[in-house]
C-alpha cells in the first residue's frame, strides 16, 4: 500500500506502524471518566466494512502520526491528515 503523506508525498505503507481506529485519539479524562467510558474507549470498535479513519505512525519516516481514511474493503485511501492537526481540530489541547 502507499500512503500519501501530507508532508512527504507517497510513501510505502511498510514504513508505517498501524495502530487502529482514529477514535483512539478521543481519550476520556482518566480522573473523571466512568469505568464504562474508559472500557468503551479502550476496547470497543466500530470496525466498519468501508470507510475507516485510522491511525498510522511513520516510524521509518518522520515519526508523524497520521489519520488515514481508507476503505477496508478496497484498501483505497481517500484522505491523509496529520493526527496532530486532527486532534487540535477536535479540541484537544494540553
Amino acid at each position, binding site marked *: 500500500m*502507499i500512503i500519501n503523506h501530507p508532508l512527504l508525498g507517497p510513501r510505502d505503507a511498510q514504513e508505517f506502524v498501524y495502530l487502529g481506529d482514529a477514535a483512539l485519539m478521543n481519550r476520556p479524562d*482518566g480522573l473523571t471518566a466512568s469505568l464504562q467510558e474508559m472500557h468503551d474507549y479502550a476496547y470497543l470498535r466500530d470496525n466498519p466494512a468501508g470507510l475507516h479513519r485510522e491511525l498510522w505512525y511513520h516510524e521509518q519516516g518522520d515519526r508523524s*502520526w497520521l489519520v488515514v481514511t481508507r476503505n477496508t474493503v478496497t*484498501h483505497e*485511501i481517500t484522505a491523509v491528515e496529520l493526527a496532530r492537526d486532527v*486532534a487540535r481540530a477536535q479540541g*484537544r489541547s494540553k
Partner: protein
Amino acid sequence: MTQTNRIAGGQIDRSQTLRFHFDGLPYSGHPGDTLASALLANGVRLMGRSFKYHRPRGPLSAGSEEPNALVQLRSGARQEPNTRATVAELFDGLTATSQNAWPSLKFDALAINDRFNTFFTAGFYYKTFMWPAAFWEKVYEPIIRRAAGLGALSTLEDPDCYDKGFLHCDLLVIGAGPAGLQAALTAGRSGARVILADEDFRMGGRLNAETFGIGDQTGADWAAATVAELATMPNVRLMARTTILAAMDHGIYSAVERVSDHLPEPLPNKPRQTLWRIYSRKAILTAGATERPIPFENNDRPGILLAGSLRAYANRWGVTVGDRVAVFTNNDDGLRTATDLQAKGVDVVAVIDTRPGGPLLPGIRHLQGAEVIDSAGRLGLQSITIRDAKGRVETIACTALGTTGGWNPNLNIASHHRSKPEWSDTLATFLPGAGGPANLTSAGAAAGLFSTHAALASGDETARAALETLGITAPAQTLPQAEDAPVAITPHWYVKGSARAWVDLQNDVTIKDIKLAHQENFAGVEHLKRYTTLGMATDQGKTGNTIGLAVMAELTGQSIPATGTTTYRPPYTPVSMGALAGRGRGQEFKPKRLTPSHKWAAEQGAIFVEVGYWLRTQWLPRPGETTWRESVDREVLQTRKSVGICDVTTLGKIDIQGTDAGAFLDRVYANTFSTLAVGKCRYGLMLREDGIVFDDGTTARMGPNEYVMTTTTANAVTVFRHLEFCRQCLWPDMDVQLISTTEAWAQYSVAGPNARKLLQKLVDQDISDAAFPYMGAGEITVQGTHARLFRISFSGELAYEIAVPTRYGDALIRALVTAGEEFDAVVYGTEALGVMRIEKGHVAGNELNGQSTALNMGLGKMVSRKKDAIGVALSAREGLTKDDGLRLVGVKPVDHSKAMQAGSHFLKTGAEPTAAHDDGWLTSMIYSPHMGHHIALGYLRNGTNRIGEKMRVVNLLNKTEVEVEIVSPHFIDPEGSRLRA
C-alpha cells in the same frame, strides 16, 4: 541421440550445439531451445507422470501454463523440483530428471493406481480409512504421504543468493507480445518512464510462434526490431525473463527476474533471481492468452498438445512433435496449425473440426462436424479414434495431435483484487471484469482482442489513455499493417460420452470426477474445486478451469457465468522462496546491533547472546574456566566484593525536552516526575492504557525542561512510539519534544563497593557521596571528554552508570578495565547482570510479560491516583486488584543443593498436580553465588501473605519437583544500605 524431429526454421542458433542429459541419457539442442523443445527435437515425448494415476505424460504446451512436463532440474544443492521443461532455457551441461516415477519413467510401479482408478474417484478418501481409528496415522496416512508430491527438494542449503529491488515507472507493461510492444513503443516515444516485462527470454509473445507478418516484416522480425528500438530509449527498461507475479495495492506489482537460471550457475556475486517491487502509476496487462484443449477419452497421452503449442514448436523452435500430425479444433485458429505444419513439410494426416460447415482447408483432409473420441499409445500417442459427421468411427495413426477449444485471456493479474471476470458469449471465454487493480487496464489478447491488428491498436490506445491521465501526451503512431481475422469459434467444451477425459491433467481430474461432484451436490464452483482438486495443481488450472466450469454449467443447467469462477490467487506462476526472501537469511536474517564494547569484548573472547537485534556479552570466560557457571559466579562475586563493569548501552534512551516535559512524564508514567529535582533521577513505571505494566526504567532530570528517559532494551522502540502518540494525538499543544539517543551514548554500569574509587580515577569531578548522592544525575567530564553520570543500581550495590559519546565507548571500556586493575575489577555480562538483579529482586523481561500489573510486581504503591496518567483508571478494575491475585515473591529451595527451573509451577505440599491447584509459577531462576544456592522469583497467588510458607515447585516437563520456601524477593540488602554507601 540425434535431433530426429528437428525441422527447418525457428529462432534457434544452429551454429552452436548444447549438450544436456535427461534421466541420464545424453541429448543435444541449440541456444534458443527450451528443455522441452530440445527433448521433442530429439524425439522424446514422455517427460513425466501425473500426480494421482501416474499416467505417462509429455508437454501439453510451450509455455508457463504447462501442467505435465515437470522435471527436476539440476542436481545436488541446486536441485529444483517441478520445473516446467517448457520454459526452462537450455544451457550446455543441463541435467534434468523425471519425477513421480519409480523405478523409471517408462516403468512406473504406481501406474497401478490407474488400473484401480474406479476406486480412486474424487473425494474417495473422505469416505474411508476411518477404521480402526488408530490406523490413520499408523497405516493409511504414511502410505498416502509416501506418494505425495511430485519433485523432491534437496535437503541442502540453497547455495545461490537472491537480490531484491524497487523500481519506479509511469507505465508498467506486463507482457511483450504485439499489444505490449506497441504499448511500450507508444509510451516510450512520449518520454514517459516505462517498464516492459515479459516472462519469456525472447520478447515478442505469439509473434515468435506465428508465421504471419506485420507490415513488410515477419512478426518475429517486427518484434525484434521494436525491442531494439525500445532498448535505445533511456526512459524504457526492458525486462525479459521477468514474470509479474501479482498486483498489490496502489499500483505496486511484484515481479521476479530470472537473472541466472539460463546459466549453469550464477556468475560470482550475482543473484540467481531478483525480486522486484515495481511502483507504477499506471499499468497495462498485455499478458496474451492461453489456449484450452477439448477433452476426450484418453486425451492425456504424450504427443497430444495444444494446437497453438504444436505450431509454436514448429515455427519458433523448428521442431515437430511427431511425424504424422492431426489437429482437433472448434475454431479457425486450429486450422493455422495444420497449414503452418504442412508448409514446413510435416505430414498433416487430418484436421478434425467440430464445426459442421465453413470453408475447407485446401490440400488437407479436413473433417467437419467430427470429433476425436479416443486415443491409443501407452507411452506416447500412436493413433486417435475419430467419429465423423455421419457417426462413422475411424482410427487414424498419428504421433502428434494438436487440440484447441479456443483461447482464454490471461486475466489473472487483472483479477487479483477479487475482481470477477465477465463472460463473453462471442469469444466463449472470460474477459477481465470490473473492480480489478485500480491502475490497471488490459489490452490485446488479455482483453479478448485476438487479432494482431487489434492487439497493436489496443496496445497503442490503452497506453495513450493511461498516459493521458498522468498528463503525458503520446505522439500519434502509425500502426503497421497486420492480420485482423475475426474469431470464429463454436463452443465445444468436451467430447460427450467421454468419462476419463482429463480436465486438470496434473491432478488427474476427469469429466467423470466433475460429474460425481455434481451428483454429491458439490456443484458450486468452490465446492467443485475443493472436492475434486480441479485447478489446484502447480499450473493453477490455466488450461483446465474454464472447461471444468463449462461441464458443471451443463450439469446444473446454469450458464457458465452464473456458475462463476474461483478466485484468482497470486502469484501468476510459482515463485521461488529464495527470491521472496532475498538476502535476509543465515547471519543476515536480521541486522546486528553491536554495543560500543563489542570490539574489546570480542578481543577478550566474550560469549555473545542475541538480545533483540543486539549482540551483548553474555559472560567473559577467563583462562582455565571450563563452565559458564564458573565465569558468571566469578563475575557476580567479584562485583559484589569489589567492582564490576557492564555495557548497558542497549537500554533505550529518549531525550525529552520542553516546558511541559515534566507534566508530560506525569501522564505517561504511573508515578510522578514533575516534582523531581534537577540533577536527580527516579525509577519510573509505565502502564499501558489497559492498566498492565508496559515498561520501566530510570528517568533523570538534566535541566528544568530537560529529561532523559531510559527504557528496557526490548521496549525502546514501542515506548518511543507510544510517547509520540501521546504527544501528537492526545495532548497536541503540550510543549514537549522527543528524540531517541539510544545509539548516541555508550553507557556502562560500574557497580560494587569500589565503584566510586574506580570511577573517581577517570572522572574529572568530585563524585563523593556528598557531591553525587544516591539517585544523582549530572553532566561530568572523563579525562576532558564530556560525559553523563547517573547514580543508579540494578545490582543492589553502590553503582553508577556512566555515559560518553559512543565514539569514545571503546576507549572508555579499556580505560575502566585498566583503572580497575588495582581493584581486580571484572567486566560482567548479561548472565551476571541477571543474577544480581534477581538477588536484588528487580523485575525484568520475564516479569514484565505484558500480563502483569504493578500490584502483581509489588509496585502497587507507585501508581498515583491523584493524577490522570495512561493506564491508571483501568488498572483499578476488580479482576486486576483481587487480594488473592498473583504477587511477586522470592523462592529458595529448602534443600540448598537443589536447582529449580524457571517456568515451574507452584503447588501446595501434597496437592495433586492439576490446574485447580496451580498457584503460579517461577518467572526467573538463577544460581546465586552470593547466597550459595539457587534462588528464584515467581508470581504466587496471594504471595505477599505467604512469605515463610513451604511448598513445591514442579516442572512436569522433566518430572522434577523441589520443595521451596517462599521468601521476600529481596535476597540482598533489603534495606538498601549498600546503594547509599
